């Protein structure tokens, strides 16, 4: 057996307590030089706490042993972490959109307490060198805001390289990338790794975890579950390790072709976004729509919800032609749309759970011309119970809830409007693997109660396992129809990622 190399980073006896809650219990963690290591765990499992200890943001409790690059520390400080080559690419990237790509990448060269002249030439050269190491070409003189999120991600990585990184943490780097952008990013991670930089990858997307990493550390409830080689792992095995539960993945698809039609879309077009889209959704049916980001799925959904105007074609709800001039019309007609961006569009984060839940159905809690607090509480209590949302008090801010529970409140908000058609746009983004199953249980229950549902997702397994029929959109058109009862998951994946 080959002897394993000395670890670049080695943590032992890491304990961390926040206000009486143990966030990390006796965790150990090793990273080998140049490896791609995946750190997996649900939200609240202690991943970010661990990263913050390694980067010096938090100090672990006494007894901890941190060895990095041959040196022992009892704790890190942000300054030592950075100067010794530990870099973090935060999920929100911490970039400066108005400044140029060059300045963003080489920003640390303009740091320092005392003013100096900026040497834009060397700034550009530093930036270009970092990009060249990643094999990427960008115009370094353009402002960063001219580039989409995928390129900004690359800029953030290039910035870490300028800091002479030996160990790079990437926190959910692919959360907002399309499949081809993700592939490109993974390619870059491989480039980094072959050039000797160790990468610790934190991702909810298990397929990527399996594709990119050689080893996997799983945390659950602040404790180490284990360290595993990635070869031989399966997605369902990782899910089991992360949640401690087993999930049976069976397809739900049923034949509902006998039910009455709720939504009929005929020849709907909005040039440049989608063309000639026709389909029906029946009572109790879940129609899955998948396709790459930018295939026109969200634009189609927004048109059905009255927020974009289709150029041509017809929308009929229970046989009646609809011409929405705004989403208020759509809500009144019984259409509900759960936005893909829950954090900024779907929920009003600082407001209370109760206020968020009733915001779309205020007319139902009016009594004698004024909003009735008691009616609000009754309505909220009913939905919280129905959807099994775990909350403290109704008046707590929505931001105190986990991703999965927030999503349940967002769904409840729309159910309270008593819709006939519910459109769910990427309902599991930012939701833990364990909590996803709960969301789909709710979706199934709603469909059984007769609601027509459109489920939009770029994760093919979600629509394969949870929808009755699957519509594949590509470049704004209907590319394929699939019936999960009659096809394999791989068939759809092959078509989508072709």
């Amino acid at each position: 057996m080959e002897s394993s190399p000395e670890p670049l980073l080695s943590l032992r006896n890491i304990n961390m307590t926040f206000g009486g809650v143990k966030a990390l219990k006796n965790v150990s963690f090793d990273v080998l030089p140049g490896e791609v290591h995946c750190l997996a765990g649900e939200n609240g499992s202690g991943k970010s706490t661990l990263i913050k200890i390694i980067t010096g943001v938090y100090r672990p409790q006494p007894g901890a042993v941190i060895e990095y690059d041959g040196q022992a520390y009892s704790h890190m400080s942000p300054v030592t972490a950075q100067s010794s080559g530990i870099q973090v690419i935060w999920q929100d990237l911490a970039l400066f959109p108005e400044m140029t790509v060059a300045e963003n990448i080489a920003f640390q060269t303009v740091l320092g307490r005392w003013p100096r002249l900026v040497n834009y030439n060397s700034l550009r050269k530093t930036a270009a060198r970092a990009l060249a190491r990643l094999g990427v070409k960008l115009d370094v003189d353009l402002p960063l805001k001219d580039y989409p999120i995928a390129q900004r991600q690359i800029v953030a990585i290039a910035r870490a390289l300028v800091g002479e990184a030996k160990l790079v943490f990437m926190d959910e780097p692919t959360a907002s990338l399309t499949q081809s952008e993700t592939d490109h990013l993974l390619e870059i991670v491989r480039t980094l790794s072959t050039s000797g930089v160790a990468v610790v990858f934190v991702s909810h997307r298990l397929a990527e975890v399996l594709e990119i990493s050689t080893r996997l550390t799983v945390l659950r409830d602040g404790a180490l579950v284990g360290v595993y080689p990635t070869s031989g792992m399966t997605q369902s095995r990782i899910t089991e390790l992360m949640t401690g539960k087993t999930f049976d993945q069976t397809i739900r698809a049923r034949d509902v072709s006998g039910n009455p039609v709720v939504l009929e879309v005929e020849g709907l077009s909005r040039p440049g976004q989608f063309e000639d889209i026709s389909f029906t959704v029946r009572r109790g049916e879940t129609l899955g729509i998948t396709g790459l980001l930018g295939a026109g799925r969200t634009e189609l959904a927004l048109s059905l919800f009255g927020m974009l105007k289709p150029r041509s074609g017809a929308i009929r709800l229970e046989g009646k032609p609809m011409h929405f001039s705004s989403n208020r019309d759509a809500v009144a007609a019984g259409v509900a749309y759960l936005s893909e961006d829950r954090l900024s569009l779907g929920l009003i984060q600082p407001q209370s759970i109760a206020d968020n839940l009733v915001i779309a159905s205020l007319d139902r809690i009016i009594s004698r011309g004024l909003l009735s607090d008691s009616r609000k509480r009754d309505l909220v209590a009913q939905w919280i119970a129905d959807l099994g949302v775990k909350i403290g008090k109704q008046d707590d801010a929505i931001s105190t809830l986990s991703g999965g529970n927030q999503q349940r409140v967002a769904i409840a908000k729309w159910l309270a409007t008593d819709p006939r058609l519910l459109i769910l746009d990427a309902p599991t983004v930012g939701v833990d693997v364990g909590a996803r199953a709960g969301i789909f249980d709710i979706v199934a229950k709603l469909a059984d109660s007769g609601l027509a549902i459109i489920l939009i997702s770029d994760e093919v397994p979600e629509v394969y396992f949870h929808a009755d029929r699957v519509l594949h959109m590509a470049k704004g058109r209907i590319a394929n129809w699939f019936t999960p009862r009659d096809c394999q998951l791989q068939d759809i994946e092959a078509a989508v990622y072709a």
Partner: protein
Amino acid sequence: MRKVVQSHATEFALLAVIAIISLFLSIITDRFFSLGNAFDLLNTSSVNIIFAVGLLVVLIAGGIDISFAVAASVVQYVTAILLGWMGGGSWLSGLLIAGGLGILLGAVNAFLIHKFRIISIVATIATFNIYFGLLMFFTRGVSIYNLPDWLTSRVILFEHEMADGSWIEITLPVLVMMICVVATWAFITRTTTGRQLYAFGDNPEGARRFGINIGAMQFIAFGWLGLMAGIGGLIQAHYAQEVVPNALYGRELDVLAAVVLGGARLGGGKGSVLGCVLGVLLISITQNGLNLAGVSPYAFKMIVGAIILVAITLSNTRIERLLPFMRQDGGRT
């Protein structure tokens, strides 16, 4: 070329609006389109441009300041009194005192904003009232006409009689304005501190994670504006040859409108010195032209307001939409 136009869309839009207005004004009045008038404009706009480049730095750093114009009045008054005690002084001592007092008053704003986490608009509305209240209380609204000779005598750096008998002049305020403009430009685009200010205004959390000293950023931004306010105040006293306590009251909104017109963003991270100068010039050209055209001064505010709206709309609309031939196919959004 396309790249230059795209990255300076605001400046080009402003230039276009200025060109259109100038054309219009030179048709309806015979005096507008003359070198003499152009230099007049420069002389009268100097103080506002000095204020504007100072305010620009605060806007870039993500703040806003309502108090700088009355702070400049306080500086004028205190400087005049101090110079009286000193028995006269000179341009050098005058500028040092005015600049120093300005920085001090700016630092008060920065202190309130940084130490007590008061948002800048609230903090500076408060200091606006405090500064102005103190000034009116202690002066009882009395103006100072008895200023040192060096301060009230016009300094003409260059003059030339044109063939048509009109004079072109460059006066001291223009020189000071140009120094302030170039210094601000160099500071915010060519020094590391300037770039840190942009970064701080663009993404404060990102800047914090880089270890940028947030408190220092506030003091530098408000200190720079204070310095400009102090210098601008002294130059205004020189230009008006008197110190009237409420002379600059209300100037803050005119300057703020001009700076935002020039492309600076309320919220930080964006803005250029050129845009800011063009913004001030657009407003003064309009006022000057209306004056020459004999329009009632009561109509000025209304017309200036309308021009601000038109110019802001033009510069917010993407240039490709206005000029279809500039559009490029596909690619970036």
